[in-house]
């Protein structure tokens, strides 16, 4: 490897403390995929321009391809794996909203898109179509034209922030 000076660190990823030996120059994208096996984090451009590798670090959307892993030590990081942890169990309301609205096509940008969406919904600011579109400006999608993604986020935000106890309402 290029940088042999591996450091033993504890990463807080998806609510679990994980030990890893990480070279100082390694990016979070490589750590998450190659050391932690979190393959939802997609590499689309390696240059901070497509958003496919978006994860939440300390609640804020970060591009894992340019975030040094050592900068994420000690702060909670989240990938899409944190949204619905049990196989077969119901998906997170945000994922449900994406499914309901046909908001994913090929699925490659979806994990990064979902994390950006989660950040904007959890920011508790009032969401408008324009503000959702602005929040997604760093996440490219080539399949959908963004129409249903924007709709799904508004839909999810309404269910998550607006009306309580209506999780069962479907279609």
């Amino acid at each position, binding site marked *: 490897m290029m940088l042999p000076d591996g450091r033993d660190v504890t990463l807080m990823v998806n609510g679990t403390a994980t030990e890893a030996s990480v070279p100082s120059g390694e990016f979070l994208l490589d750590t998450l995929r190659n050391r932690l096996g979190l393959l939802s984090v997609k590499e689309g*451009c390696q240059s901070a321009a*497509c958003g496919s590798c978006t994860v939440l670090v300390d609640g804020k959307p970060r591009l894992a391809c340019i975030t040094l892993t050592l900068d994420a030590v000690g702060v909670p990081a989240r990938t899409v794996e944190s949204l619905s942890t049990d196989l077969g169990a119901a998906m997170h309301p945000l994922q449900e909203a994406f499914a309901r609205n046909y908001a994913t096509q090929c699925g490659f940008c979806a994990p990064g898109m979902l994390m950006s969406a989660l950040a904007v919904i959890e920011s508790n600011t009032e969401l408008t179509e324009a503000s959702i579109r602005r929040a997604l400006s760093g996440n490219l999608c*080539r399949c959908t034209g*963004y129409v249903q993604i924007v709709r799904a986020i508004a839909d999810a935000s309404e269910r998550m922030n607006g009306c309580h106890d209506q999780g069962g309402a479907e279609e």
Partner: protein
Amino acid sequence: MTGISDRDFSIIGRSVRQVDGAEKLTGTAVFAGDVYLHGMLFAAVLRSPIAHGLIQRIDVSRAERVKGVKAVVTGNDCPFRYNPPLRDQPFLAIDRVRYVGEPVVAIAAEDEETARRAALLVEVDYEELPAVFDPLAAMSKEAPRIHPDFDNYVRDSRLFTPVPQSNILSHFKLRKGNVDAGFAAADRIFEGTYRSHAFNHAPLEPHAAVAQVDRTGQLTLWASTQSPWFVAEDLAKALGWPVHRVRVISPYIGGGFGIKHGLKNEPIAVALALKANGRPVRFVLSREEVFSSTAVRGAVTVSLKTGVREDGSIVARKAEVVWDTGAYADVGPLLCRNGSYSATGPYRIENQWIDGYCVYTNKIVSSAFRGYGVMEMAFAYESHTDEIARALSLDTVEYRRRILLREGDENATGEVVRSIGLRECLDACAEAMDWDNPVPEGRGRAIVTTAKSSVAPSGSSCFMYMNDDGSLTLMSSTTEMGQGSRTVLSQIAAESVGARLEDIRLRASDTAFTPPDRSTSSSRSTFNMGNAVFTAGQDVRKQILSRASALLEVSPDELEICNSSVQVRGVPAACCSFSDVAKVLPGATSGPITAHGSFVPKETTSFDLETGRGVRITAFWLYSSQGVEVSVDGDTGEITVHKIVSVHDTGRTLNPSACAVQAEGGVAIACSAALTEETILDEHGRVVNPSFMDYEMATAGDVPEIFPIMVEVPHAEGPYGAKGMGEGPTTGVAAAIANAVADAADIRVRDLPLTPERILRSMQVLEG
């Protein structure tokens, strides 16, 4: 399918959820780049820095000595050429490089960094040759020959006609009626030249491949390829192997749009795997490689000349189309044919004369793009149609209504067209655009109509069998790349059997198990694979009824199937489940329920090479109409697209939401390509904008409001009457925007993309 009402169906025609939505949304869907195997090596490639030259010397000795390097290959190690119908492309350059970015040396190492470092240690000496970048210049006899060995290439001569001793690899001719007599009878002649530009498909997933050759010589390839059988066959032929020695597995694909149809990065992974002593080799392209050295939607120049009578009827059309295919053919000969014959549009024109030329240049290769030439042709013919209508002071929509092909007409290729939903599309679009009322102040608008064929003849097949719990496994080679094939094929399977949708287990795209299918391209899967699935489903249904009849002791005629159970008609208590019939009864004379379906459209024919005509050159057409409303900022040249209406004849809409999102996505990509995107080369043939930073692709804030509408003119052979629709949404958008700009600002722009600079230049021309 007249006489069958919607209530007869329980699963098709409904917006059921995507069957693979959960996998994609939880990040568990596996893409080719997520395949990691024990002992896997990582690849890097050294590419040509020059556009045209002879390779004088390659010295790989320093690279081979790097610790961790396990295989180094050059073109001399793999003298194979791929890509039907013209096998001109080597796995790695052999003796000559033809574009900047062409792979020259490939290296496999224990990790990616080592492979990249070793690639930098390879020394290559070139003798630079004159390069040609402009396809029109490349057509001249004096131009440098890019493929002097052209005559040695293996080619399927039935499909295209090269021009000897030139860079023109295909000259397509369409001849209909007497075009000279037609022009002589015309009252007015219109002429125009329209240029479409090169842009990148830009799927979010970069091409990924993992190749492994085992001890028996069996090759397994996990690849982000749209068309696993097409790729398996191409590789096998290149290597001189039987096709079964190549197993291609296509997991989920992160967007294709045509650039993942034929071989791209896969041959390099294979070349290395052949030398890797059984170890798997992973080769994933960087974004820069996707942009600068893989493929583009190529540039096309279309010159049209049209003879028109005073009433607007078209008596003659001449078209010359020049396709820039770049350094290698890829789909060029087929694109030149299928695109060029579309150059006259879906209109009644008695006399037609089309010449299409597919030309080599020293540039990145042009490949198939969603719409397969029709968006380039439609930009020309629909710009031209509006020019004619305006010159004759006719309403552009009313004019189209008058000249559109109708049921029973003979089109350009000699086919008598049936099930033609053009008028329905146009009317629905005009209504949604509120065409009868004036456009809001300061805006312009336009409506266009387009037609696109689907590849033929082309076969599809599938297997279906029942599992012990009564669920059904469907095995199909159609790949899922976002277009929703898994969902719609599952719907057809469930409907044709009478099963619940959740009882369909789709196993997709592994040529070792899923039977042959030409490709996932050309909007063909719903129609072709859909028919194969329907056939298998009907067979399974028959077997279920026969077994249930034995179980329930009634004749099969008295049984009905619904929601994965069988009951005696009118006697709900007398029923059995699919799991009951799944069991092989003691003493039974038959084994488990299995079926296959196979489909090739009836009587599709090939073309006559001299006239470009056949009896039936496609199984179905995609008919579309698209409307656009814009405003143009006279100070900045900026075009604002306010809305796009996108209407498509689906034959039967098998899943309304899936069709709507296909329309939205197709419109968005076409709009972005028409306005801002372009693959730009410098004077040396180097792509200067190979990143998402420099390549202007639409983000969430840039996409206009889109109104998808489906109309249904059933197709007699389509599954439940359905046609394909995936490519329709890209076809007319650029033309519609250009025409709406003409309406708004009284300027005619005949070159794409419609950048502010180009708009301003046109306005200044008008001001004198």
